[in-house]
């Protein structure tokens, strides 16, 4: 079920090129040789999974490519996708000491991709399942957090079952990452590589509450890990919301990553929001060939939460912006959206007096956040929510001693690398709990 060959070949995402292309051997060697091999390196400190970056780069420069990928994957089994999707500008690369001497920082992400691409292509396998512990863990949600947790648990000999509501594993790596960073088939190939450790059962199409109860899961497993990510896109409750041509950004991205979207007749598109999903969406729409793409946000450039380097790139690609703007109604024509009625907001974020104005658009995507987990965890004793997130301690433990959580559902929506780090940390805590005797 993680067979990437069953993805349609004519997916809309297939037309995108890599915005940071792969390094060739000569480039990788030259870049690796530039690394200063820092001690207590700041790049490592900025990596949520703590990859020993100077070490893996040194191994590239000595020609020990297999060892290089091992250093990466030992710390982060999703090293391949993280190499492509991490906002390295604000993580490892942002920490590179070359920045301090106004020299270009080391291209850590691209070097990491160089090593991990080689490992996945050659199917170099480094990790074996530990001796059977007789314990079992159920993991709810099949994204990077659960998969990283399961991989770590397998190294320690615990049996794992992943329950995922959808068809494909990999979470947002598969359905949500911008295709110029990572395509769905590559994400699925990585999932297959992670599952390659063996002993991870997968039950797809299973939704807790609908298909199985928490009690049943707790009866089946010694511990549970919840890594279900975030819910559906939030919508705008304004007149015209039933019109065609309106979609949630996350839902839309999933559609064109896994299949085809038809944008014939879309001359102008608006993305509402100012976060990273919004910035991805505008760049993707440009890449899909929409002639005029506008980001519409109630704040401004300084207030938006999307990464500055990504937004800069979007502007270079021709994306327009409407700041301090709020939609008040969709404008329709023949049952489809034809534009947005908007008002300008003042410094106090209240609408300024006046009529408002209309912005034409044949497609409107909403990137104004995703629904939090409401009733999902109801009935799971001891597990608490705070602001829609699952409340966990630094080890990913919830208030229920047998239930752990990590990834977006616990952190509110961060990067893949955070999900991996949290999944791994929770796995270590689960292992401690299981091996020191807490059981059903």
């Amino acid at each position: 079920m993680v067979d990437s060959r069953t993805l349609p070949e004519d997916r809309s995402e297939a037309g995108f090129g890599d915005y940071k292309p792969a390094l060739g051997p000569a480039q990788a060697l030259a870049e690796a040789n530039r690394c200063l091999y820092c001690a207590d390196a700041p790049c490592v400190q900025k990596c949520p999974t703590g990859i020993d970056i100077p070490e893996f780069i040194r191994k590239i420069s000595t020609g020990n490519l297999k060892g290089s990928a091992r250093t990466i994957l030992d710390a982060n089994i999703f090293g391949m996708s993280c190499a492509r999707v991490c906002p390295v500008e604000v993580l490892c690369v942002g920490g590179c000491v070359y920045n301090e001497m106004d020299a270009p920082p080391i291209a850590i992400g691209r070097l990491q991709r160089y090593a991990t691409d080689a490992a996945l292509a050659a199917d170099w396998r480094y990790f074996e399942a530990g001796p059977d512990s007789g314990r079992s863990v159920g993991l709810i949600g099949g994204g990077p957090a659960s998969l990283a947790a399961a991989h770590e648990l397998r190294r320690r000999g615990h049996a794992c079952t992943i329950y995922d509501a959808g068809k494909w594993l990999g979470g947002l790596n598969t359905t949500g990452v911008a295709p110029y960073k990572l395509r769905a088939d590559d994400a699925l190939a990585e999932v297959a590589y992670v599952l390659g450790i063996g002993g991870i059962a997968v039950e797809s199409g299973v939704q807790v509450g609908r298909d199985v109860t928490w009690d049943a899961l707790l009866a089946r497993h010694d511990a549970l890990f919840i890594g279900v990510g975030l819910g559906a896109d939030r919508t705008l409750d304004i007149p015209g919301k039933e019109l065609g041509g309106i979609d949630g950004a996350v839902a839309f991205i999933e559609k064109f990553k896994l299949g085809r979207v038809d944008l014939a007749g879309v001359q102008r598109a608006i993305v509402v929001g100012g976060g990273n999903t919004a910035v991805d969406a505008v760049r993707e729409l440009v890449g899909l060939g929409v002639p005029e793409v506008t980001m519409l946000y109630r704040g401004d450039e300084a207030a938006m939460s999307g990464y500055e380097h990504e937004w800069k790139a979007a502007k270079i690609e021709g994306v327009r912006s409407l700041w301090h703007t709020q939609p008040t109604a969709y404008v329709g024509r023949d049952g489809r959206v034809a534009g947005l009625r908007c008002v300008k907001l003042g410094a106090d974020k209240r609408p300024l007096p006046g009529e408002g104005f209309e912005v034409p658009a044949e497609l409107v995507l909403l990137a104004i956040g995703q629904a939090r987990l409401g009733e999902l965890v109801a009935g799971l004793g001891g597990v608490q929510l705070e602001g829609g997130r699952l409340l966990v301690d630094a080890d990913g433990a919830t208030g229920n001693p047998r239930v752990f959580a990590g990834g977006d559902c616990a952190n509110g929506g961060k990067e893949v690398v955070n999900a991996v780090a949290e999944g791994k940390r929770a796995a270590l805590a689960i292992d401690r709990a299981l091996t020191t005797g807490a059981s059903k």
Partner: protein
Amino acid sequence: MAFGTSVDLTSNTGGIVTPNPFWLASAPPANSGAQIMRAFDAGWGGAVWKTLGTPIQNVSSRFGALHFKGTRAIGFNNIELITDRPLEVNFREIAEVKKRYPKHGVIVSLMVETRDEWRDMIKRAIDAGADGLELNFGCPHGMCERGMGSAVGQEPALNEKITSWAVEFSTVPVLVKLTPNVDEINPHGLAAKRGGAHGVSLINTIKSLIGIDIDRFVPEPRVSGLSTNGGYCGAAVKPIAMHMIGSLARDPDFGLPISGIGGVANWRDAVEFILLGCSSVQVCTEVMLRGYRVVGDMIEGLTEYMRSHGFSTIEEMRGKAVPQFSEWGELDLNYETVAKIDPGKCIGCHACVVACHDGAHQCIHPAPKEAGTRVPVVDESECVGCNLCQIVCPVPDCITMAAVDNGFKPATWNEFVSEGKPLRPKKGAH
């Protein structure tokens, strides 16, 4: 299958057995017990303790380096002497390290003068738990002016005599550390052998002057207003070390185990040293520059190399390159190669063109203008196969040296002189 499980890295150098062939050389990284224990934790299999003798007083500064085109310290130079720490402290720490790390190798380097001093120091080193001794006949500065170090290593009779004392007094294997500051290494290795040594280690540092402060007119490293000659080491000395190691390894009269030293900076260097006959390798400069952590990649890289080449022990691969290290007179003069440029890889820098024109045989030419390419053309009728172009080409595997069938049977210079075997016509000699 897990990474590298079928390979055994255990190394045996003249009876000194260590879990892997990677040792710290006798130098600052092996100056104290606390350092050596950290090194063992990082993965080093053995350590040769910083040379013990009558503790000395050092100068500052004491190091210099050769930087080349932005790469720092491709060569390294020092004017430091042997240990400056009290002997009792050193011996106490040796005992502690051996107690905590019984499986690792602790080899104690010694440098003293009289027979009685050698007897005394050897007894104390062995009492402390030394797994082996290394006689420092190699230090090229300071100590030799006092009649020790390379003063001994340069005088085969003295080398043999002191070695025989050490062997007489020692109950553990004795390695003799040789100086490269000699014209031929073999007489010195053979002297150590006659003295009864269980093995040799080489090279120590090479006499050098690393640079001049061009504003102060003082050589480096500057000690107040003066400087002196030092010992050269680091990546740049590796070819010299390998030549000397290879000379001993292929000497049929020699045959002692070798611990190779000089410019080892990564697993590839170690592989080369072992293929050239070494049972272990020692590292100083790379650790001084980058720390004990470099051993991780060395172990992993060597393991993977052995696995991919089907070697399961160090002994199986040791010396595999020695038979192919021969003499000029045995090389096939009729073997002919020409340079071939891969047009798909060439980036058109013309580094090969200028090198061939000014430094070789004027046979790589820019393509004619009408060809519309910057890929140069090799005139194979003139190419002597010197491979200078291959060396300067910045693109990996872009220029290859292809063997040419010229119809001549192999013939060496020796065969030409003794049997008159026919040689191919010379190329490029007009």
